[in-house]
């Protein structure tokens, strides 16, 4: 989540869900929390019962809008305009939290003289490289201006701070996507501080640049772009302002309604700016909640099954020239002189020790060469683009269904058809497992050469392991029963596949095979595990995942724990070293297993502390509210009694409070770093954002590929031009994947005049693998439908409850028409535009089947994270059905309930509804 990382330092939701009950006002935007995270939504509802105001800004009036105090409808894809308007409102009406902004943000930092804003260049920043359609922050002088006489002049490079800042964030894209040397990387490192103007008057200070940048986002312009009324916008702005400050806090919650845009990162950045200006970060009831949709999507990012990231947000090493391919160059370009990332070398060396064990030695760079280098974009979108064109041979799918849920799913299925072999680990026969026989739009099976292995996966209750939920909380789940039939956990499969491969390669002396042969791969249980009822598990070869979690946590290799006879577990990442004496599989998770038998992810202790610090383990360091140093004023006192969380206890000489301080515990508020300080010593006692090199929240952030400040651009497909910057319609750095399978309706389009957005229903899950085989959910939402307004229905002769077709350049689908007043046309730039909503849960495999919204979406990618844009695209709609045969379920409705009695249970305690019962 670079959107958050670029502003605050860590790409993760800042507060915990229960904390939303402490908010005085919550702005939901790009989120439909009540429908997507209903149980998490109980906390906002609790805030509401206590008197808080809930605001929903969304293109559709949803079940959440129904319980919010205020709903404002805006056109899909106009979020930055709305949020930019809020920033402008806060600045022009002097509603920002002066003391907070001055002390905790980079408002006073002076930006390099050469920087040119979108105001100067008609919607572009300086440094744009036309040829590569990307920005070069160095050429564009995006960096901070250095104080004179420092290191900057000595090493002859003026803007080194920008280099550091640009990659500080360690987002997955720490290197250039084409695999070349990171353009953000400067060979020199400087600890020189950027120049500041605490009066905020310097024309090049961040505050002044911000004011100029957002000046054109007036309420009238917001209304014009978003299609809401100026007074609706003003009401939101006023509510946010009155509910922020010393005594009150406002929370902003978002989800995929923000991320699935080609400007997604910048939308989140705008919220970051707003929350910094209002002083809501690091405080109870404040923050920015990234609401995620999968049980461990946070963990999968942390650990990390991402092509450009190693566990713990270390960048996957890019391909570099031979002089810079070694570990030292990697560390040099990855680390930071100041802030927490100064420990970079410890993290990577410990990871290599965890992976390669004894074979990772100082003399072979700890096996660093065995880690594959990235020489291009291998993200899902780019890789499937390549696959669809025939460049990929083998593929593993572990619980993901790109053939149903991938953007432009038709292209994804074309990719699967081009594979030589495919391994699917899943529970049900999903679209991705049956594309060769059930895809109505695909060729005959006899024309598809893909070999498919379907590995039945164990259900969640049939295996143990940990999940990291949306607020970084790692929770262990236990195994209740053995996997049914031949199904096995994914861990079992990977572990045993690894053993087979090691056998196949055994004895090889080829250097390319040494990584595999040296990979530590011994997770056998010490003795056959038992089930909760005391019987032995019948599964042979299951890996002991607590051993894996211990490896993730890390060990001191030079110390033996007498309790286990093995290396001692580390208690946290501060113990890690870069000399090869520690091993750690994911440094941010360090501390989750601090001693033998103490799996903190499995802790379930309820205490008097409302934060419940002993239920699970949150990274980093079990901190529940990130940057919580900011919950106290610069002197270390709580901003107010009502909003206290962590404060400086001058007697104990320590930060104390409910939460673990996200700060060095004994660093006093008046600490000032000595000149030339490095690492954490360079972070002053008043700098809460400790993973930033200057410890400040970044209103202006050069760490993002599409500009240091957010700018409104239209979606790639839009019926409108860009009212704010008429010369620059869409994000100039968007990446396209041209090809016959992925045509785009370039904007402003007249052929496809209707705006479409996709959404999630409470009753279903993703593309349906975990819901469309379940009759209890299917009866609640049995068919694909499209939500549209009365006005659009009347215009196209579409009847409520009847059929309609939706068409984009990528495909056509049919859906039942849900004509509703919950959707309304928007008046944008004086012109009426219609919008439809498409749930993305249906496709061709399952107990219920239907038109797939993702057959319509396009493969386009945001430059930072390769995110597609399914929340705003254009389409054409008409009444009627698709020609040809209608879809039929691929499985019959399951007989339910089974009439088999529950074992070991008398008739009187059998479920009531096993309806055959009764004498």
């Amino acid at each position, binding site marked *: 989540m670079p959107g958050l990382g670029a502003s605050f330092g860590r790409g993760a939701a800042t507060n915990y869900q229960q904390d939303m009950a402490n908010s005085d006002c919550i702005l939901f935007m790009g989120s439909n929390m009540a429908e997507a995270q209903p149980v998490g939504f109980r906390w906002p509802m609790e805030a509401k019962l206590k008197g808080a105001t809930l605001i929903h800004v969304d293109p559709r009036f949803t079940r959440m809008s129904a319980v919010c105090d205020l709903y404002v409808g805006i056109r899909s894809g106009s979020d930055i305009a709305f949020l930019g308007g809020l920033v402008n409102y806060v600045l022009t009406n002097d509603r920002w939290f002066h003391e907070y902004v001055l002390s905790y943000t980079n408002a006073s930092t002076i930006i390099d003289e050469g920087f040119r804003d979108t105001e100067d260049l008609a919607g572009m920043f300086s440094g744009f490289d036309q040829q590569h359609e990307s920005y070069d922050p160095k050429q564009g002088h995006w960096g901070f201006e250095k104080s004179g006489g420092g290191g900057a002049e000595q090493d002859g490079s003026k803007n080194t701070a920008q280099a550091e800042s640009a990659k500080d964030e360690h987002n997955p894209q720490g290197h250039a996507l084409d695999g070349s040397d990171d353009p953000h990387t400067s060979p020199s490192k400087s600890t020189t501080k950027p120049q500041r103007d605490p009066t905020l008057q310097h024309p090049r200070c961040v505050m002044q640049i911000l004011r100029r940048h957002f000046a054109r986002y007036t309420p009238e312009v917001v209304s014009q772009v978003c299609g809401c009324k100026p007074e609706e916008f003003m009401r939101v702005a006023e509510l946010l302002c009155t509910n922020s400050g010393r005594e009150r806090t406002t929370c902003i919650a978002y989800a995929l309604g923000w991320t699935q845009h080609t400007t997604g990162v910048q939308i989140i950045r705008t919220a970051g700016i707003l929350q910094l200006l209002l002083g809501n970060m690091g405080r109870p009831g404040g923050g920015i909640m990234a609401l995620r949709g999968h049980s461990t999507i946070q963990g999968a990012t942390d650990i990390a099954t991402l092509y450009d990231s190693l566990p713990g947000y270390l960048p996957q090493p890019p391909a570099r020239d031979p002089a810079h391919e070694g570990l030292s160059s990697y560390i040099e370009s990855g680390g930071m002189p100041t802030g927490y990332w100064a420990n970079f070398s410890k993290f990577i060396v410990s990871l290599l020790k965890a992976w390669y064990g004894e074979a990772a030695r100082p003399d072979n760079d700890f096996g660093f060469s065995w880690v594959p280098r990235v020489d291009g974009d291998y993200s899902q979108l780019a890789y499937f683009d390549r696959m669809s064109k025939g460049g990929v041979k083998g593929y593993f799918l572990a619980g993901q269904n790109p053939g149903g849920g991938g953007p432009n799913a038709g292209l994804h299925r074309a990719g699967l058809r081009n594979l030589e072999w495919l391994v699917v680990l899943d529970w049900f026969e999903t679209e991705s497992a049956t594309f060769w026989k059930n895809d109505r739009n695909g060729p005959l099976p006899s024309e598809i050469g893909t070999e498919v292995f379907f590995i039945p996966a164990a259900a969640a209750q049939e295996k143990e392991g940990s999940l990291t*939920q*949306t607020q970084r909380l790692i929770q262990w*789940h236990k195994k209740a029963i053995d996997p049914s039939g031949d199904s096995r956990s994914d861990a079992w499969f990977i572990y045993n596949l690894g053993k087979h491969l090691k056998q196949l390669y055994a004895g090889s002396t080829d250097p390319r095979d040494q990584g595999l042969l040296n990979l530590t791969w011994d997770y056998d249980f010490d003795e056959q595990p038992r089930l909760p009822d005391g019987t032995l598990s019948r599964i042979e070869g299951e890996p002991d995942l607590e051993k894996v979690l211990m490896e993730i946590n890390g060990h001191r290799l030079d110390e033996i724990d007498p309790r286990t006879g093995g290396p001692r577990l580390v208690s946290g990442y501060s113990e890690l070293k870069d000399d090869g004496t520690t091993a750690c599989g994911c440094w941010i998770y360090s501390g989750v297993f601090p001693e033998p038998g103490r799996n903190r992810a499995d802790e379930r202790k309820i205490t008097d502390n409302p934060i419940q610090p002993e239920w699970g383990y949150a990274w980093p360091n079990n901190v529940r509210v990130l940057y919580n140093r900011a919950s106290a004023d610069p002197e270390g006192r709580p901003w107010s009694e009502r909003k206290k969380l962590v404060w400086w206890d001058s007697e104990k000489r320590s930060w104390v409070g409910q939460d673990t301080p996200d700060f060095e515990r004994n660093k006093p508020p008046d600490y000032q770093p000595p000149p030339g300080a490095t690492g954490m010593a360079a972070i002053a006692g008043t700098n809460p954002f400790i993973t930033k090199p200057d410890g400040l929240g970044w209103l202006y952030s050069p760490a993002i590929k599409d500009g240091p400040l957010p700018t409104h651009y239209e979606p790639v497909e839009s019926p409108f031009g860009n009212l704010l910057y008429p010369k620059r319609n869409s994000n100039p750095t968007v990446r396209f994947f041209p090809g016959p399978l992925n045509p785009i309706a370039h904007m402003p389009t007249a052929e496809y005049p209707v705006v479409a957005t996709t959404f999630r229903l409470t009753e279903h899950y993703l593309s349906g693998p975990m819901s469309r085989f379940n009759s209890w959910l299917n009866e609640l939402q049995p068919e694909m439908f499209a939500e549209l307004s009365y006005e659009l229905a009347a215009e196209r002769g579409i009847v409520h409850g009847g059929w309609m077709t939706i068409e984009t350049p990528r495909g056509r689908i049919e859906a039942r028409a849900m004509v509703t007043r919950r959707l309304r046309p928007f008046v944008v730039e004086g012109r009426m535009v219609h919008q439809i909503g498409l749930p993305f849960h249906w496709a061709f495999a399952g*107990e219920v089947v239907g038109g797939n919204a993702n057959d319509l979406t396009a493969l386009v990618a945001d430059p930072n994270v390769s995110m597609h844009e399914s929340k705003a695209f254009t389409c054409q709609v008409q009444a009627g059905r698709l020609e040809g045969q209608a879809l039929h379920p691929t499985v019959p409705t399951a007989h339910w309930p089974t009439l088999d009695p*529950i074992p070991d249970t008398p008739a009187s305690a059998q479920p009531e509804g096993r309806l055959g019962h009764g004498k």
Partner: protein
Amino acid sequence: MFRFSLGKHPKTSREPFSVETLAKSSRLRGANVTQGICPYCAVGCGQLIFSKGGELIDIEGDPDSPISTGHLCPKGANAYQLSVNSHRVLEVLYRAPYSDQWETKTMEWALEQIAQRVKATRDADFTTRDEQGRLLNSVRSIGSLGGATIDNEENYLIKKLLGGGLGVVSIENQARI
């Protein structure tokens, strides 16, 4: 007028309780219970998983969880049917090239076959250095997708084996932002 009164509470002692009704209790008595986490979204609700005789008999919210305090959404409440479901595939299926049907196989067979496919593809396509002489040590023709719906440890093992061991680069999951 000609109306009966609405009536009073019937007396419990005079109600005709049947034998089965009298013995009524929940099926949770004597069950094994484990604490789980809901497999659907990222809220991280606590679940209590009840089993008897090696079978799941009930999954409901864990009242102790400070996040969910015992509540579940419809999907979380459906977790039982997600596992106990006649549509679940419980044997290894194999589809040969150009075939129009599945064949049932053993897990051992599949593991061996897959390992051989991986080895053959890797051995053919492993790239030590690119044309510019840059070190890659990567396999660019094998990929992996998925991770956000499985466990952290499984993600770690996938990344470690496929990335650190085999040199696969395109290891991806649902998270992109």
